[in-house]
């Protein structure tokens, strides 16, 4: 179970952040600073970007989503049909067709009789999402080739195949208009009572019908527009439904009562198949829809909607996950797939195939085949799935589960008799020296496979229940971390809190008072020997006054250097820069008043502490004393040389900003000061909470 305290803490952090960024622009002194400094305003705007993230906007409810991803024809719908019989009875899981449409089915728990139990909500993609997919280079090239014209309006896209050069025989099969408008819903569509049980409506939304039975008329009317089935195929991102999770809870209860409670907090997402079929049925939208399935999974991942991924593969078939993986890496970066292993469950569907497929059977019954081709698990798990899933080598999922379905196994006779017959064989695979044993051990599932056998042999479980228990177990193990990572780290909340604290610290003290005048006076006077209009001015000063002496500040190879020699060297360099500034100010006739020097020294020392931390000197991990062979001393001299200049730049920058703000006649009232102080306190508290959360759960690696 995910501790309530964690959920509460996440919500406190996000509320603190939202409150502060809402409040600050209302504070007159802060608003003036934003007006006078483009940099200040830009920094603040950047730090507000997290506000737009869904998981910052909406409270954390502790729900964990588990997406089932598999290729078309791997039996995903058949399994879900048995796991969610209620839903199947309502007609939302069509098992007798292969041409399903590309959208996600989101399943949340609602107890029977609950007012929400029958709720069905259809959500569409945003215009930006549709435009992005329509402008995919492949789609543009294919549309161009077939002379399908696309018009990008502000709130819709028009796809026009009136002049298309596609084959006439192909066109003769078309049933929909050649010009289709794709206008996303402004708000989700709440499916009315009659429609919820209307098979025709449900099929129009979920199945690509044969031309002979196709109705091209409007399926829904929404926000003053009507949508036919083809338009919905392109527009709909997900259909959200409720289900009593009866079997799910029963199975999860097998683990513990807590397990059943956790199961109720799961959101299952049935994603469209990885391979796309019957694109010709998509007529003028064929190229767009040909890309949609993967895009759904990609969008879910991009929006952090996938906490746990259940990759379902039919035994003996190859995984096509790599196409999705490549697409995700292309669109979102490699880091997006980081840590997938720890939240990945591989569900091998069709355990019966190990006994019914002669080629697979030979891999454990014929020693020579085993020697030559590897055992049945090596072939079906490693070769077909784990090595193919990622372009980056073998994936090691958190769990591997074998399951089966009544519907398929019953074709070979009674389910329990079938597994009673093969149970012994399965158990033998766990014995040392038996074919399969080494692979199970290598994959780390030798123990869990024994449990899995019991589940498979149980006709009420079929391994499906075992999958649910593994899911709940995995959530118990990693759910808290996933939640904190999703809500606090990946939303940028933690960085934003830290950035906001720093931004305020530039011009306000801890009591919320503006320190502009003093800072400007001190910095301005002490740095007046630098020409701020000349970008090379700092460089010239540092080259003459700092660089020649740097070598003496850094311990040499055989010196007796402390562990933190890098940080200490930085401190000495900063001190030297400060001295050089004083010297420049007190040469010849020039004398800076002692009070100004004192204020400068205070500001400088305060900054220097932050620089050492932010610039990484405090955490440098280089052995002491410096090693000439690996060049750590040279590197440090290099960074000190740069950072001597950076110190001067930071000071002049602050001075310039302060001057600009001070010159704008900035005045701070008591209320202004108090509001800033309060926001600073809120920020610091939220930052502490967020840091503790991420450290305790290991959410930030």
């Amino acid at each position, binding site marked *: 179970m995910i501790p309530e305290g964690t959920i509460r803490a996440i919500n406190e952090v996000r509320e603190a952040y939202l409150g502060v960024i809402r409040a600050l622009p209302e504070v007159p002194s802060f608003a003036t600073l934003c007006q006078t400094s483009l940099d200040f305003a830009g920094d603040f705007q950047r730090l507000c970007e997290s506000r737009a993230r869904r998981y910052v906007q909406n409270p954390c409810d502790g729900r964990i989503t588990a997406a089932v991803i598999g290729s078309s024809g791997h039996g995903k719908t058949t399994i879900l049909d048995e796991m969610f019989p209620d839903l199947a009875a309502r007609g939302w899981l069509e098992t007798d067709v292969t041409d399903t449409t590309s959208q996600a089915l989101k399943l949340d728990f609602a107890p029977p009789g609950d007012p929400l139990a029958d709720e069905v909500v259809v959500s569409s993609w945003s215009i930006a999402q549709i*435009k992005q997919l329509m402008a995919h280079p492949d789609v543009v090239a294919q549309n161009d080739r077939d002379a399908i014209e696309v018009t990008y309006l502000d709130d819709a896209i028009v796809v026009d195949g009136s002049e298309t050069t596609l084959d006439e025989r192909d066109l003769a099969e078309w049933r929909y208009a050649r010009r289709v408008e794709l206008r996303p819903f402004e708000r989700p569509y709440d499916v009315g009572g009659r429609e919820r049980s209307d098979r025709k409506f449900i099929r129009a939304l979920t199945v690509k019908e044969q031309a002979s039975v196709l109705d091209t008329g409007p399926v829904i009317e929404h926000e003053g527009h009507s949508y036919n089935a083809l338009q919905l195929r392109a527009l709909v991102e997900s259909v959200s439904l409720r289900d009593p999770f009866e079997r799910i809870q029963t199975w999860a209860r097998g683990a513990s009562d807590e397990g059943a409670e956790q199961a109720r907090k799961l959101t299952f997402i049935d994603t469209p198949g990885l391979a796309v079929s019957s694109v010709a049925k998509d007529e003028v939208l064929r190229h767009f829809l040909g890309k949609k399935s993967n895009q759904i999974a990609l969008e879910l991942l991009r929006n952090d909607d996938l906490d746990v991924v259940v990759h379902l593969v039919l035994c003996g078939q190859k995984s096509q996950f790599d196409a999705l993986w490549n697409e995700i890496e292309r669109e979102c970066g490699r880091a997006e797939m980081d840590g997938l292993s720890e939240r990945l469950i591989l569900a091998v569907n069709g355990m019966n195939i190990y006994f019914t497929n002669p080629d697979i059977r030979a891999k454990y019954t014929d020693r020579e085949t085993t020697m030559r081709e590897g055992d049945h698990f090596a072939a079906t798990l490693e070769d077909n799935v784990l090595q193919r899933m990622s372009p980056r080598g073998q994936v090691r999922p958190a769990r591997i589960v074998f399951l089966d379905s009544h519907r398929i196994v019953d074709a070979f006779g009674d389910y329990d008799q079938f597994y009673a017959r093969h149970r012994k064989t399965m158990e033998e695979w766990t014995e040392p020296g038996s074919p399969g044993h080494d692979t199970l051990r290598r994959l780390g599932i030798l123990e869990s496979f024994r449990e899995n056998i019991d589940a498979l042999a149980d006709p009420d479980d079929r391994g499906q229940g075992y999958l649910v228990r593994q899911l709940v177990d995995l959530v118990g193990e990693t759910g808290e971390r996933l939640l904190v990572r999703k809500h606090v780290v990946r939303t940028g909340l933690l960085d934003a809190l830290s950035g906001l604290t720093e931004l305020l610290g530039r011009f306000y003290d801890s009591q919320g008072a503006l320190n502009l005048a003093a800072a400007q006076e001190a910095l301005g006077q002490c740095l007046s020997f630098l020409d701020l209009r000349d970008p090379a001015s700092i460089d010239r000063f540092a080259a003459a006054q700092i660089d020649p002496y740097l070598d003496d500040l850094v311990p040499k190879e055989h010196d007796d250097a402390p562990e933190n020699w890098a940080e200490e060297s930085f401190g000495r360099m900063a001190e030297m820069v400060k001295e050089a500034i004083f010297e420049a100010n007190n040469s010849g006739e020039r004398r800076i008043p002692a009070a100004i020097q004192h204020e400068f020294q205070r500001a400088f020392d305060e900054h220097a502490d932050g620089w050492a931390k*932010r610039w*990484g000197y405090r955490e440098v991990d280089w052995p002491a004393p410096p090693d000439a062979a690996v060049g750590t001393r040279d590197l440090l001299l290099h960074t000190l040389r740069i950072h001597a*200049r950076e110190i001067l*730049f930071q000071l002049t920058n602050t001075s310039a900003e302060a001057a600009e703000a001070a010159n704008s006649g900035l005045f701070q009232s008591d209320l202004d000061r108090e509001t800033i102080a309060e926001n600073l306190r809120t920020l610091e508290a939220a930052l502490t909470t967020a840091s503790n959360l991420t450290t305790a759960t290991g959410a930030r690696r």
Partner: protein
Amino acid sequence: MKSLQHEVQGYHWIVLPKTGIQICRGFPIARALYKDAERVFAAAGTLADKQNGGQPNEALRLIDEHIACNRELEATPWLQADPNEFVFYRLRKAGDELQLDLVIDTCNGAGAQAGNRVPVRVDASRFSLRRSEPLAEVYVEHHENARNEIGSLIVDFGNTGSAFVFSRDGAGPLQARIVEANNPFDPEYRARSGSEGHIVRSNMIVLRVSPNEDEVPWIVLGERAEELVRSHPLTSYLYAPKKYVRDWPDAQRAPEPTMKFRGVVGQRAGLHSMLTFVRTAVDQMFQHVLASLTNPQFTSDAPDFYPQIRRVMLTYPLTWREVDRRLFTEMVKETSLKLLGHDEAAREQFEVELICSEPVAVAAFVLWETIFQFEVQNLRLAAASLGNASGSDELRMLVLDIGGGSTDVACVDIGWSVQREDGSVDVSFQMIESMRFNRAGDRISHWIATAVTMFLQQKYGIEESLDFLHESNEPAFTLRQKRQAVSTISHLAECCKRAVAGPEKVWKLGADQERELVACFETLLGGDGWREKVDHGPHLEISDTTLEGWLRRDSQTLSPETNGEPGFEDVFVYLGELRRSLAAKGREPHCVILSGRTTRLDFLRDRAAHAVKLPVHRVRTLEQILPGNLRRNGDKNLDKLAVVFGAQRFRFGDHIRFSAVPGEAIFNRYIGTVRESRTGLRLNNVMIRPGDGAPKSIRVRVEPARDVRIGHAFRENGSAQVIASLSNHSHTETFEVEVDVLDDYSVHMQKHEFVTLSEWVPGGNDLIVDNFNDTGRIDCEPKGLMTRVLEDDRVAWLGGHGASS
């Protein structure tokens, strides 16, 4: 007896087919001939006289004049081993020994087919050996019998030069082999700068071409090509081939540039698209690469190894559209499959991959080297050394690549996450802004060239145009002399840039240089009275401040007649606007990385720093990223090598893993139709605003027989750049056409009967038409701008003499 027989036979020189022109210098002759060395040498000389005295053999003549063999050695003339094959040899004396220099074309004739043997012999009747006994034998071996190394070839194809890295499968990022290409047609090969070896210069001249399209032409690349074009001005010469990589839609075929296909020897009928020559240049470069990998010094008597190239990875410039990238990928694939010795399975697996854009490759290089040196656990210090003072896990790097022909500007947003468990780091790159200008080093050269020609006018009264197409008033001032003059002036411009970038910061035209320069115009001067003037004033002197002053006035805003073409200064105007735009979004760059040779000019660093409001320590050249002793690959050509190494690290970065993330699907610029104004191009009718979702269709009205230009700008009233132009070819009808603006730079339009759309490369005409080297034309874009500025500034560069003029 058998062993003796064996000894008498010539040794085999083993070559592999389709590995370009192969040379083996100093190949030993059969041991049995040692005692007859003198007689063999004499016999070869006689045979050469006989061969060359008959029907002149043009291939042999080309080998004699151009092949990269030492001409200072005592050697026989070149001979052809077989009149029907491209196998050549000569005998040379090395102390008491006699050696062979051997040449074979492995792309034509017997050299192209594995299993062939070509004996190299002299006429036996002149000495005691039996007729059948050769000096040596060329044996063409099957690829698979050579020591094969399977791997990837990473290519940075550039306008001025290209660089190649071969990365063996399983090799780490530091084990990649940079290809040091040798030019087989370069008699001056010993005098060339060693550091240039890493770069295959891209400009090419056709040495030999057969009317038979199946025969692979002989091509000369690089500095030697530049030298050759002076003496063979009518030969097909391609300067900066990359700029011609462009997919021309059928509607726009008419403006596609073409050229004759003429060699120093031979020609093909008709005009050929420039793409044909790009293909030829790419072909030639691959031949160079294969030749250099198999036979690195041109001294190997057997292939060192054969690279089984399973994947070619390419970088690409920012401005290549999807279609251009596809075109180039296909071109490279075609060349690869033609040249690479793949078995059927390897052919099927072979792929050409676009790895990343050039600025991202530079950023990847900088990041990889920095992280590698600082180590993953010290990433914060590493980032701070590159300008991130906030301590966050990100870096915004603005790459300013001022190359020979174009300037690329790209702001890359870099983020990373460290995997503590295995000490690896995942780095993602997202391009948040980019722009390209066809204004770069050659524009600076053009300014200097204009100053040189004005100096010649003032001091020597030389008024004759150097335009290659302009008929000279003095018939004796021929195209060859113009080429010579242009070449000399270009060389002086390079000297000037080097001197100005050096510690002295000033360039003075020396007396010897002046004499050499004026000598090019001797036919116009009548006699040699001009020689006396050389030592007297005025003298040409260009300092960094003078040059900087000129460039600061090279701006579109100063010349309303520019037709939207920016000047060099507009690069910095753009940088300033970019900085404002990024600052307003809180995404200012942390640092600027200067790459490209031209950035060696110090004042450009200051100009860039000024434009982006960063101190100069945050604006660094590639050499300044790390302390000197930690830089690998030396300093030479780092500008060029950074791209190819960056691309290699991008793919094979070991524990530092890179990935590129597409940008956000919103517009960052104002986009609309543009108009001229007294302060340069401005948006006329804004149709798209920053933040609008991309793509977006706009409707544009085009009057009969008129053009409408579409452009973008950072500010609504700011300086605009043209990105596309619509032309209505109807003389009677007005059309309102729909144009899909896909992002800030890409425009797409469905076919229209009368209106055509041509995409522009923002930042200048995409074909560098005013290049002095290509045309000999001076100061044409816009006409007279440079002359006006230089006139105003005469005192600065002609001293006291300027004032009197």
